Structure formats: structure tokens, C-alpha cells
């Protein structure tokens, strides 16, 4: 493995290394991981043509409820932050939302072009991608703007 790749992995590890005072805490990251797992568990059967309509509706409902719970959790967290941290959080959420919309549009278009016409999976992958991006951006912004030493 080259040194650039090692540095990238180290940078990613640093990004996720949590402290209690961080905007995206270890607990918040765990919630995101659980959300990703729930989404993956729902998205795969939804995408399968063999799945019955009722099962698809049930899984889609689970996905929606999890997404709303995630949104509620994040809004509560962001409201508890101070003004500077809120600025970082809202910017990160807005950027992640923008990327997620493009991800759904772009991936959906590519899937349609190659003949894979099940858009459920694209719709199911968009929200988890949004949360992951948001968490990464918050960590990145925090590192860029406010992670100086306490001198």
C-alpha cells in the first residue's frame, strides 16, 4: 500500500476518532451506522422483484420511520449546539442534501439507461448516503475550522 493511501486511511481514521466535545459524537456515529444497516436490510428485499408488494410496502415504511427518527435525532442534536457549531452543522447538512439529491438523480438515470428499472433501491440508498456525507462533512469542517490546540 502506498504512503498516499496510508495517509488517506489515517486521515479518515482521524476524522472518525471521536472526543466528547466533538459535534458528531461517537454515539451519533453509531446511530448513523445502525441507520445504514437498517437501510441496507430494507433496500435489498425491496429491490428484489420476487418480494411481495406488501413486504415491499412494510420495508419502505420501516425505512421511512427510521429516516424520520434519524432526522428528529439530528435536529435535537443541532439545536443543542452553540451558534458556531450550528453553522457548521447546517452547512454540512445542506451540502450532504445537495449531493444526495444528485446521487439519486444520477444513479437513477444510469440505472434506467442500463435497463435496471427498479428505482426503489436508488431511493433507498439516497437517505443513508445523505447521513454519511453529513457526518463526514461535519467532522471535516470541524477539523478545518476549530480543531486547534488549546493553548
Amino acid at each position: 500500500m502506498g504512503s498516499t493511501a496510508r495517509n488517506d486511511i489515517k486521515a479518515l481514521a482521524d476524522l472518525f476518532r471521536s472526543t466528547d466535545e466533538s459535534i458528531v459524537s461517537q454515539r451519533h456515529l453509531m446511530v448513523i451506522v445502525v441507520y445504514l444497516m437498517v437501510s441496507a436490510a430494507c433496500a435489498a428485499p425491496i429491490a428484489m422483484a420476487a418480494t411481495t408488494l406488501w413486504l415491499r410496502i412494510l420495508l419502505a415504511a420501516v425505512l421511512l420511520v427510521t429516516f424520520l427518527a434519524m432526522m428528529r435525532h439530528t435536529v435535537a442534536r443541532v439545536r443543542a449546539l452553540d451558534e458556531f457549531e450550528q453553522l457548521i452543522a447546517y452547512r454540512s447538512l445542506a451540502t450532504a442534501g445537495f449531493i444526495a439529491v444528485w446521487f439519486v438523480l444520477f444513479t437513477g438515470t444510469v440505472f434506467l439507461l442500463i435497463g435496471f428499472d427498479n428505482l426503489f433501491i436508488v431511493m433507498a440508498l439516497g437517505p443513508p448516503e445523505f447521513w454519511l456525507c453529513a457526518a463526514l462533512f461535519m467532522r471535516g469542517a470541524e477539523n478545518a475550522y476549530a480543531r486547534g490546540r488549546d493553548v
Partner: protein
Amino acid sequence: MRNRLKELRAAEGWSQADLAERVGVSRQSVNAVETGKYDPSLPLAFEFARTFGLPIEEIFLGDRQASD
């Protein structure tokens, strides 16, 4: 906008975390304000002023003031 937060904090012997606790924000926010990466809102600027017992204009300097 420039500020004298670091200098005033050092004079009191406080760390960024100490000042953050007194003002009621995170240490990252104090760091961002000190390094000029973020300009605080008026309420937060007043809170800094109250904490140091100084008028706002003695802590935060506009670009014109700083160059004089």
C-alpha cells in the same frame, strides 16, 4: 475583524476550555473566534465582553481600528 481574546485569556491564565465554559460555548467555538475563522454574533460578543469586564470595542477590533 480582529480580536484580543487570546491575549486577554492568557492574562487571566485561562485555557480555551475555561473561557468556553464561562461564556457557555464549545472550546471549538472559542478557537474559531480567536483565530478569526468565525465572527461571533452580537449576543456572544457581549458575553465575551461581560466575562472579561471590558467594553466590546476593546475586545473586537474592526479592520480600520486594527490598522490605526
